[in-house]
């Protein structure tokens, strides 16, 4: 099974966590990214994720493979949503297991940062006032929006 998956439906964090089980692991760190109701001072109602799926999958897989190698992980997995999400939904789930906590914390942080930097997924925020806009990695509005 792929370490990275792009899914159109809600993420089951409990089921995903089972993918990390390993007898040699003494630490498990999980990051969940949720849709919040505000960004840059504006009230957010919902958001849409658009992805270039084949490349998102291969880039995500490459990040997780590199993390396993770099941080000597027992297991690593990540799931990212596509489609339409509302406030409170889980947008991304990242989990790792390792022999010790230092590697697990560092790897989990590194993976989510790399996903946000490299994986071709774009967020379109819809605001309470009816406007919407594509965002850049630092969560500021894209000037390409119309």
């Amino acid at each position, binding site marked *: 099974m792929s370490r990275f998956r792009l899914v159109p439906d809600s993420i089951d964090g409990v089921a995903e966590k089972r993918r990390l089980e390993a007898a040699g692991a003494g630490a498990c760190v999980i990051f969940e990214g949720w849709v919040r109701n505000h960004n840059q001072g504006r009230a957010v109602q919902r958001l849409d994720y658009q992805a270039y799926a084949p490349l*998102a999958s*291969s880039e995500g897989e490459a990040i997780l493979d590199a993390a396993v190698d770099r941080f000597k992980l027992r297991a690593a997995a990540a799931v990212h949503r596509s489609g339409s999400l509302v406030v409170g939904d889980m*947008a*991304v789930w990242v989990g790792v297991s390792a022999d010790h906590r230092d590697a697990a914390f560092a790897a989990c942080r590194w993976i989510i940062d790399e996903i946000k930097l490299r994986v071709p997924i*774009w967020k379109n925020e819809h605001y309470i006032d009816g406007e919407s806009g594509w965002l850049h990695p630092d969560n500021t509005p894209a000037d390409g929006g119309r």
Partner: protein
Amino acid sequence: MKFRLLYFASLADCAGCAAESVDARASDLASLYDEVRQRHDFNLDRERLRVAVNGHIVAWDHPLNEDDEIVFLPPVSGG
């Protein structure tokens, strides 16, 4: 040369479509972007984009072949 172009996020909004087939004068990626940018009035500078050919991220001097699938990638915002 004929290419298949896919558009995402703000570029798709500007182009008014998610994909198009083009018969371009350009034979390299940089001039191809300039060509479609002019036609669709894209306002993202090329320096801000990455580019993928046939599902792989490539450098801007990557050689092009007939029927390549090309995606100009705006700055991403997943997570």
